[in-house]
């Protein structure tokens, strides 16, 4: 019995007291395609980052390659010698450099005396790798920008193969297929099969369950920071079984929409053919008192929708009607939308939501300084009252209004951020992935607050890729694809229904 090509034992990672990955194990055999699946936040990217040494694992974990212990701690500088190669989401290629430079970066052959790069030797090594991948027609001196997508994938793989003996090592593709257009996917899969037929092990991290079924031999599923199934053969599995593995049955989220009924009222916001960024045409009506979810796969344009409704992205078209007043987006700006009553809670809490070096009070009261304070005196009493109200309503710990935001946990920061925007009683509340990187307790609090905003009369737009969140709070869910509305679901629906609506469609709907 030979040792597995790659073996991981009890790998854990804790960020400041929050365990994001607990006792993970993984066993990848030579010559197999092994898929890692799991939702956002399930811990799969953490696992990859631990193996690649980007993060330092907690004490106790072990990583072996061919039975030889390489960590922890894993030294990222030695990964290549150990036989591990990582191909990242965006392939990590520099378009302005030549194929040869991209492939050999960090491993240039140099003249022993001058230290200059030995171009001839580099080119020969590159040509050999490309020929192996049946891409012998690519000239190593061509700029990567001029290659076809499938050729670029080959270049990224060729880089991973440098200095490697045939059939050895492990290549990890971290969501690589996202960066690859549909027409190039078959070539990509072909190259993976070529690699494994020689004995190299391949790990793919993927959201795309169809892809997993198509090329993986075995899968490992993660959920909530734990490995729930390791090395399950894909033979005899279907998408439904994989979906169950990924979602599990937690039932830990209450059905807020059921328990907190809210009636749709007059007013709210209407999106009229809005366009901008990757959103190509979205129309929808969200009445006051309603929570409407928007979701979609990674390339659906979902990530830009919230900012677009808040008029915070460039090149906007279409118009938005807020409580009967039409605002053309061409001439709109953030301030115009704010005045109309649209509160936008961005996804990037640290980058756009809160100034983390400033205090809770300063952050919470920022949007209301002009309306509640005088231009020559901000006023103190209202700031204090307002901040105390947020701390109480959201049960923020510690309830200290003069504490600096950075000292709070992610969940408490999210509570402060929501409080900041809910205070003004907005006409519409636009949330962008509000439960990202918050713990279960805070997640519940955030979702309850989302629902409460609708009960209190706001029109709530929840942009999220977390199907459980959507199922728990939404009255309706709009599924986007390629920047357009694909379908709309109305209650009753389950997380599974939403999940299938998103993913079956993107992969050519075999059901």
């Amino acid at each position, binding site marked *: 019995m030979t040792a597995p090509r790659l073996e991981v034992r009890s790998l854990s990672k804790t*960020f*400041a*007291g*929050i365990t994001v990955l607990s006792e993970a194990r993984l066993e990848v055999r030579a010559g197999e395609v092994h898929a890692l699946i799991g939702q956002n936040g399930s811990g799969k990217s953490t696992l990859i980052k631990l193996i690649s040494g*980007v*993060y330092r694992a907690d004490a106790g974990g072990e990583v072996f390659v061919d039975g030889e212990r390489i960590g922890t701690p894993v030294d990222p500088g030695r990964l290549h010698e150990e036989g591990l190669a990582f191909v990242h989401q965006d392939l990590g290629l520099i378009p302005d450099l030549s194929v040869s430079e991209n492939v050999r970066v960090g491993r240039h052959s140099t003249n022993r005396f001058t230290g200059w790069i030995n171009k001839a030797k580099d080119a020969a090594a590159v040509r050999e790798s490309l020929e192996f991948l049946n891409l012998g027609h690519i000239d190593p001196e061509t700029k990567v920008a001029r290659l076809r997508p499938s050729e670029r994938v080959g270049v990224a793989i060729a880089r991973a193969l440098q200095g490697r003996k045939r059939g050895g090592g492990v290549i990890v593709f971290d969501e690589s297929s996202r960066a690859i257009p549909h027409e190039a996917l078959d070539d990509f899969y072909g190259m993976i099969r070529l690699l494994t037929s020689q004995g190299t092990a391949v790990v793919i991290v993927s959201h795309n369950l169809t892809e997993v079924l198509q090329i993986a031999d075995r899968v490992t599923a993660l959920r909530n920071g734990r490995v729930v199934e390791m090395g399950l053969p894909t033979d005899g599995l279907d998408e439904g079984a994989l979906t169950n593995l990924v979602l599990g049955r937690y039932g830990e989220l209450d059905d807020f929409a059921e328990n907190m009924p809210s009636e749709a009222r007059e007013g709210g916001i209407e999106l009229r053919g809005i366009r901008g960024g990757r959103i190509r045409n979205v129309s929808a009506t969200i009445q006051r008192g309603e929570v409407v979810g928007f979701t979609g796969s990674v390339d659906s344009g979902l990530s830009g929708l919230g900012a677009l409704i*808040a008029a*915070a992205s460039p090149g906007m078209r279409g118009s938005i009607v807020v409580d009967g007043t039409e605002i053309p987006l061409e001439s709109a700006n*953030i*301030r115009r939308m*704010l*005045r109309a009553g649209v509160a*936008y809670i*961005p996804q*990037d809490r*640290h*980058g*756009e*939501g*809160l*100034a*983390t*070096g*400033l205090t809770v009070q*300063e*952050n919470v009261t*920022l*949007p209301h*300084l*002009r309306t509640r*304070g005088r*231009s*020559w*005196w*901000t006023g103190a009493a209202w700031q204090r009252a307002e901040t105390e109200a947020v701390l109480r309503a959201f049960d923020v*710990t*510690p309830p200290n209004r003069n504490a*600096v935001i*950075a*000292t*709070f*946990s*992610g969940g408490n*920061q999210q509570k402060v951020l929501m409080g900041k925007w809910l205070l003004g009683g907005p006409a519409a509340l636009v949330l962008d992935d509000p439960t990202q*990187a918050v713990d279960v307790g805070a997640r519940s609090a955030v979702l309850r607050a989302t629902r409460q905003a609708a009960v209190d009369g706001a029109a709530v737009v929840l942009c999220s890729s977390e199907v459980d969140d959507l199922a728990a709070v939404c009255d309706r869910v709009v599924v986007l694809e390629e920047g357009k509305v694909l379908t709309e679901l109305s209650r009753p629906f389950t997380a599974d229904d939403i999940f299938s609506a998103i993913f079956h469609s993107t992969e050519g709907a075999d059901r």
Partner: protein
Amino acid sequence: MTTTQTPTTTTNIVIPPPVSPLRRISMNLLSRYALVILWIIMLLVLLALVPGDVSPVNAMRTVFSQITPVVFLALGVVITMAVGEFDLSFAGIFSIAAVAVPSLAVLHGWPVLLAVLGAIVIALAFGAINAALVVGLGINSVVVTLGTWSVAGGLAFLLSGETTVSGLDPTLAAISTGRFLGLPHLFWYGVILVVIVAYIMGATPIGRHMTFVGSNRAVASLAGISVGRVRVGAYLASALLAGLAGVVISIGNGGFNPASASAYLLPTFAAVFLGTVAVVPGRFNPLGMLIAAYFLITGVFGLQLLGLTGWVTEVFYGAALIIAVTVSHLLQRRVTS
């Protein structure tokens, strides 16, 4: 990608045991005004070391009577740094404004009032150039303001004919050097400006907006603050203060030698950064800057009393700048982690 360093989440929040109010207030005061205490200690040590009989009151009076533009210049830097901008050009703008007053008045025969206005207009023009390039076109602020510093400083030499221009009516000098409560008007101007800016930054919505623009532009912009206007305003305010400094200094001295301008660069930065350890610890603030400025002037004055001049001044300011930045960095880390 951003979670690799400085995870900002903490779950094991330790609620500090209750502290008696008296102790809390005194700790608070200590952390805010430690610099003042240090200042007094430094003064006493210096006086003990200096031979002869110098009373502390006289020494303080001498310190406050320095005819220096540092407070004005540093106030401008505090404003630009607070909104997250970097302005090196103040020394050049100060220089050209200070040269413009005597040059226009004496060499070109303009009325003094008009010459003063001309100097201010020149200063604001350079501020506008900074703003247009940095805010409008998005060019690196260090590069732009380093350039305008050199251009303005160079043009100051051109305007003055490469010499000290003097010959302003000596009776006008009283505007700057006349005394009130035993201290020169210049000192009081500085205090008044500092108090005004401190009030704006600390107690008005504009000040809070400045803080947010400096802390996180995206957050500010999503809250409806016109980030661009705040940044432009900061560059103009900084240029205006540098221009005013030039005016009061050249009137006070009856003229100005443009070669002396660059000597103010380091004391100004040292005062600004040292100021972040006082009054509002961890933030650029005018009152802290005022205390820090006179703290530094006292230090140099003491060194002079000990008979050390020349190189010592530069070493002192340089060391003070580095120490100030280090302490302020450590302070910031303690506040946010």
